């Protein structure tokens, strides 16, 4: 029986990590936007009794959705590993890669775990005092929407590494996109203050515009990580261009070339 070619591909682990990254972001989108409907976030101005109704209306959905995250959320490590790998391939100090790795090792807590824990507690304890449930509801959404410092610094570290790199691992425009993403992370801070309006945790500026930028940023880096794997030659010098059969005739591929 012929041995599958993939098993002998020296990039097989990189591809495994890349497909796991796709799997994680798909799971994240499905759980938060479809199963639990915790994104877009609930209303910040809800009274305690409305919060009780909010939990009751999605009791099973919260338990099933966040159980999936508790089991599979660790897949988020694969994208962090690939990004750290990409920084190690650059002509910059290893301190950049280590800083990024350590920062993002804790990013899952404000990034999604805190809201999962808070909402699961709320769903499992529906008989609690409504005031306590509202406190848990606030804690969940504020920890999710209002704590972006880790991502701000992470974006700036990645940006700096890309701008200093001479191996052309990532295109320079993506370095600047990191800055754009970092700057929108600052904008969520007012969500701690406001209970309604464009700066509240579900507001047009604090949430919708921010998510649009983050979505574009995430889509771009997933595609660029794929290009990096295709271009990887396991050397130490400048990375070769995208193989012609992968890039030919695609305007997007040409634009995304470093």
């Amino acid at each position: 029986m012929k041995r599958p070619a993939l098993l002998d591909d020296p990039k097989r682990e990189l591809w495994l990590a890349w497909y796991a990254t796709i799997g994680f972001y798909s799971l994240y989108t499905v759980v938060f936007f479809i199963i639990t409907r915790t994104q877009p976030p609930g209303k910040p101005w809800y009274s305690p009794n409305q919060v009780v109704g909010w939990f009751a209306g999605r009791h099973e959905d919260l338990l099933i959705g966040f159980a999936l995250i508790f089991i599979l959320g660790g897949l988020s490590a694969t994208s962090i590993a690939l990004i750290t790998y990409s920084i190690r391939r650059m002509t910059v100090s290893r301190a950049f890669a280590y800083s990024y790795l350590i920062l993002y090792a804790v990013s899952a807590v404000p990034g999604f775990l805190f809201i999962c824990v808070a909402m699961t507690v709320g769903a499992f304890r529906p008989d609690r005092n409504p005031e306590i449930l509202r406190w848990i509801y606030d804690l969940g959404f504020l920890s999710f929407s209002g704590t972006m410092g880790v991502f701000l610094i992470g974006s700036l570290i990645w940006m700096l590494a890309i701008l200093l790199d001479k191996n052309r691992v990532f295109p320079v425009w993506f370095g600047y996109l990191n800055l754009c993403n970092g700057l929108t992370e600052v904008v969520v801070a007012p969500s701690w203050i406001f209970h309604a309006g464009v700066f509240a945790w579900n507001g047009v500026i604090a949430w919708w515009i921010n998510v649009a930028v983050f979505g574009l940023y995430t889509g771009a880096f997933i595609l660029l990580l794929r290009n990096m794997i295709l271009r990887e030659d396991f050397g130490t010098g400048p990375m070769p261009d995208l193989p012609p059969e992968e890039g030919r005739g695609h305007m997007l591929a040409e634009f995304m070339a470093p």
Partner: protein
Amino acid sequence: MTTTERDVSRASGEGSSGHVPGGRDIWFFVLFESLVFTSYFCVYLFNRTQHEQAFLLGQSHLLLWLGVLETIVLLSSSWAVARCVQHARAGRFERARREAFLTAGFGLVFLILKIVEWVRLIHMGDTFTSSQFFQYYFFLTAIHCVHLLVGFVVLGVLVYQLSGEKRRSQVTVETCATYWHSVDFFWVLIFALLYVVR
């Protein structure tokens, strides 16, 4: 052709038809940030049409002359950074460096004027939470100031580039100048929306 010669050739547009100052990457940043700011402006203008009288009342607390002064100062900084690029193109790096410092000086004056304006408004009771207009006012001016602070780092890179003979890259000089012009560009739009449109 050496890297520096190629840089100068690219920067001055010689032998290339589609060249943009600083290269296409920084223009991607300018375009993307323009879209983000445009979305903020759309939200502001939509809310303004819903509460026109309240916004007019808030606007009446601003000093138009102070906004004009801030705009003149920031436009002067852009003029200085444009001269910096011209000097660098002509190989007059010491003069280019002086213009870069002048740019930073104007930027610093703008920042001081902005802080003075914020303190004055807060003493008058106009804070981030006092009214819808001042929510937008403080948000837009603060996010612009964050861009300005990043601009000081960019000017630091510019001075560093101009200071070392081996480091001088015209593309980098123009990239830094383009970033600074974008800070100026965003301010002109913010000034028009917050101070002028009544």
